[in-house]
Each structure stands twice: as structure tokens, then as C-alpha cells.
């Protein structure tokens, strides 16, 4: 489904992603983990077209997307949420979600659009807030709204950048079960997380990064007990 080959991205000297490769099969949930500043968000930005790689290729299905602008990649079926939640402040919750289903991979307009947006809101549990201004939502509800905006486009690949961060324990349980539902639905997802319980319970496969490089890859249980991974998280340089 998604194929990343030797992708490198540097910011004026700082190599944020260094020769990264991985594959993501359809229906798979992949965890992308690593310490702060290891390049996870940069990978998400490269996949969604927010940033362009210096070298390497990215394929979605059998199309190369590494040279496409973000809007074209969205139309190919890639949707995402942002590490720092991005809402459309002058719009209602319903409108915030609806815009995800107009221009992208799935296209609705008119009454069909509203029905579909309400369905997505029900899905993430905030249907009762549909007419609320987006700015009036709590942080968790803004995150739910952002997920609904991504889901309405019926994405082939969904990217969640620390979608569970900042939630309290009950919200976290709800959040994990929501992503679990997406998994049973057969969605293909990459999740970036620091919450290891979520990684263990949700992911089939894990890629671990450190300083832009892939340092380990495999099933979560195996990867998380890897010596190099543990020392990367503990900040041990001689691993």
C-alpha cells in the first residue's frame, strides 16, 4: 500500500530523516516510534506532502507521491491529523468535518455531505456538538473532530501524529478503543505515539527511529525489548 525508499530530509544541515525505508501493507497498523526529535513528525510531513524529501521515493499504491503537492496526495487517499491539533477556528464542528469530504479522496456535496459528516461525528462521539463553534471544544473533542475530518474522506492510508497525547486515563481508553475499531474496519494506519500501551495493543508492526535513522523494525513486543531501542529511549549513546 505504502512504500518508502531511502528517504532523506535535511533542514539546513540538520538531517531530520536519514535514508529511511519501510513498507506498509494494506490493512496494517504500523507504529512509528522514537525519542523526541527523532524525526517522526518529519516523516509524516514527507508522506502527506507538507514537506518534500531531498532524496528517495514514496509510493502510495502504485503511484509515486513524493513529487506531488499535499492536495494531490490527499486526493490519492492519504489523510492525517496533526501533532498540534489544527482546527478551522471560524467554522462550526460540523463544517470542520464536512470540509474533509468535499475536495479529497471521497467527494460529497449538498445533503449527502451533511449526513456523512454527522455520521463521522457520531463515530468519534461528538455528534451532539455539531453546531458548536470549533473553538469552544475541549482539547480532546478537537482531536476527535480532527479525526472525523480525516475519516470522512474514506482514506486509503491514515496518519495519526500523537493523536493520544494529552488525554487523561479514561479518554485514553476511549481513544485506544476508537482506533481499535478502525483496525477491525480494515483501515491502513500509521500511528506515531509515545504511549507504549497503545503501541502494544494496536500495532501489527513497529518502526523505531533515532536521530532520523531506523534503528529497529518488527513486532511491537520484540522491538520494545530490543537493547538498541531501550538505550535510545534512555538517551544512552553507546548503544
Amino acid at each position, binding site marked *: 500500500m505504502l512504500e518508502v525508499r531511502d528517504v532523506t530530509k535535511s533542514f539546513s544541515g540538520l538531517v531530520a530523516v536519514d535514508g529511511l525505508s519501510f513498507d506498509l501493507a494494506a490493512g496494517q497498523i504500523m507504529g512509528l516510534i522514537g525519542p523526541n526529535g527523532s524525526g517522526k513528525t518529519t516523516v509524516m510531513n514527507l508522506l*502527506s*506532502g*507538507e514537506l518534500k524529501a531531498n532524496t528517495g521515493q514514496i509510493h502510495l499504491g502504485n503511484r509515486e507521491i513524493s513529487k506531488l*503537492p*499535499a*492536495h*494531490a496526495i*490527499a*486526493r490519492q487517499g492519504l*489523510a*492525517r491529523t*496533526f501533532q498540534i491539533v*489544527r*482546527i*478551522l*477556528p*471560524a*467554522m462550526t464542528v460540523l463544517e470542520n468535518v464536512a*470540509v*474533509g469530504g*468535499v*475536495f*479529497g*479522496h471521497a467527494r460529497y*456535496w449538498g445533503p449527502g455531505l451533511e449526513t456523512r459528516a454527522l455520521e463521522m461525528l457520531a463515530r468519534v462521539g461528538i455528534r451532539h456538538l455539531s453546531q458548536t463553534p470549533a473553538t469552544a471544544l475541549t482539547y480532546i473533542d478537537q482531536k476527535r473532530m480532527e479525526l472525523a*475530518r480525516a475519516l470522512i*474522506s474514506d482514506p486509503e492510508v491514515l496518519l495519526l501524529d500523537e493523536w493520544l497525547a494529552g488525554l487523561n486515563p479514561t479518554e485514553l481508553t476511549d481513544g485506544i478503543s476508537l482506533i481499535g475499531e478502525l483496525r477491525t474496519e480494515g483501515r491502513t494506519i500509521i500511528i506515531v505515539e509515545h504511549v507504549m500501551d497503545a503501541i502494544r495493543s494496536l500495532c501489527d508492526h513497529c518502526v523505531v527511529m533515532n536521530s532520523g535513522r531506523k534503528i529497529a523494525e518488527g513486532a511491537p513486543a520484540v522491538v520494545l525489548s530490543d537493547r538498541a531501542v531501550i538505550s535510545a529511549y534512555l538517551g544512552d549513546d553507546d548503544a
Partner: protein
Amino acid sequence: MSGTDKRNFALAAMALAMAALLPLFDTGYWLALGVSLAMYGVLATSWAMFSGPTHYISLATAAFFGTGMYIVGGGVEILPFPVLVVIAAVAGAALAVLVGLTTMRISGVYFVIFTLGLAELIRQVVTWVQTTMGSSSGLYVLTEITESMIYWQLLLLLAVVYLVGWRINRSRLGLALRVIGNDETVAAHVGINTAKAKVILFVISGTVASVTGALLAPRWTYVEPTIAFSPMISFQVVIMALLGGVHRLWGPLCGVIPFMLLWDLISAQFPNQTTLLLGVAFLLIVYLIPNGVVGLIESRLKRRSSGNG
């Protein structure tokens, strides 16, 4: 079309019909004022259609306006007037495509400076062409077109601008622009071709400004680059649109009318300080009423209705 739409259409048509009667009552001062109101009404409304949702402050109005005016000035002895208006529309659109494609990726203050420079650049080119071709720096525009006719043409153009704006607001393009104004990154990530949406609106406003310049050319009988490409036009359009409010289609018109009436009085009192006064007006508007007169009225109404309910 909903009930409120029908009512708004009826009201707009009535207002237009009443405005169209003006030349029957006076062909002096009031008609001249009417022409200015209609001209700035068209320019400010079409300016806000682009700048309102995108927050790009364009100072290119004079560039398009002057281009339209010079096309009529240069061709009036060769081609019939309506043909020249069409050519002005096409030229305005072409210029806007060119400028739009090169500038929609630059943002903020660079865009403002670029658009301001554009009018100046075209003015210099026109002046240079005229002086090297041996003639004087201006052009005579002698036609049978009266001020009343100019006024009616401008009202018609205003009606067209409103129809186009109304249509866009209800379309995917209108939604795309609102999303762009809220968060351009989100816009791109939900599949909106942001550059294309912005260029389309820039082209619409550029075309309208060029046609406005073409329609007004017969009013001056003698057009000069300093009049046609005057940066004052661009500044006044921005100020009037902001005064009225750019988040509603009918907002700019609510700024044009009070501004023109006051401006006439003030500039008659202080003829040498107009640029300074314009700057002061701009600052006052931006700081005191950032959402314009319409925003002020709307928040009043909202407060009252929430106070009652």
C-alpha cells in the same frame, strides 16, 4: 433558492432600480458622486471577494484599473467601445493570471509590496511607450458616452459582481476559500488546490477592476498615467472594503458610501493632506473596527438577541 435568498434578491433589485433613477433627478454634483460610489462599490466588492477570505492584501487594483482605462484610451479611435471593454476584460484576466501564478506562493508583506510595485511598473512602461512614440504623455478619449451612461454601466457591472459573488459563496470554490482563510495547511491536506483557488479569485477581481477602468475612461476625456495608475485608487479601495467589512458580500458597499461622503468633505477642507489623512483613516479602521461596520452591526444584533433570549 431559499426564502431569504428570494427576499434578498427582491431587495437588491429594488435598491438597484432606485439607484438607476438618480440621473433623472440630477446630472451635476449628485450624479458625479453616484459614479464615484458605483465605481468604488464595484472595486471594493470585487477586491474583498479575493482579499476577504484569503487575507492577502492586494494593492494591484490601480494596475488593473489603469490597464483597462488605457486600452480604451489607446483604441477608442480604432474600435467600437464595447469591443474595447471586452478586450480590457481579457487583458485584465491575462494580467491577473500572470501575476497570480507568480505571487500566490509568496505571502504577507511581500505580496503587498509586489502588487504595489506592479501598478508602478505598468505606469512607467506606459509612460515610456508614450514618450518614445513621440506623443504627449496622455491620451484623448473623445466619445458620445455621457456620465449617465457611465453610471448605468457601472450599476450593471455591480449587479454582475454581486451575482458572481453570491454564486461563489454557495459553491465548492467559496468553501475552499473559507478553509484557506482559516488554515491554509489544513486546506491543502483536505485536497484543496490552494494556489488554483486563489488565482481564480484574483483573476475575477482583476478582470472586474480592468473593466471598471475601461468604463470610466470616457469620463476623463484626457487620461494620463498618473491618473489611471494612481496608487490612491488601490489604497482607497482597501480602506473602504475594510471599513465596510470583508467577510460579507455586501460589506464593502457599506464602507464605500460613508467613506465617499466623508472623504469629499474632508479632502475639500485639507486638500494638501489627503495622503496623510488616508493613512490615519486606515490605522483607525484596522485598530477600532477590524471587522468593519458590518461586523459591528452583526455583533450588536447578536448581543441584543442573546440578551432577549
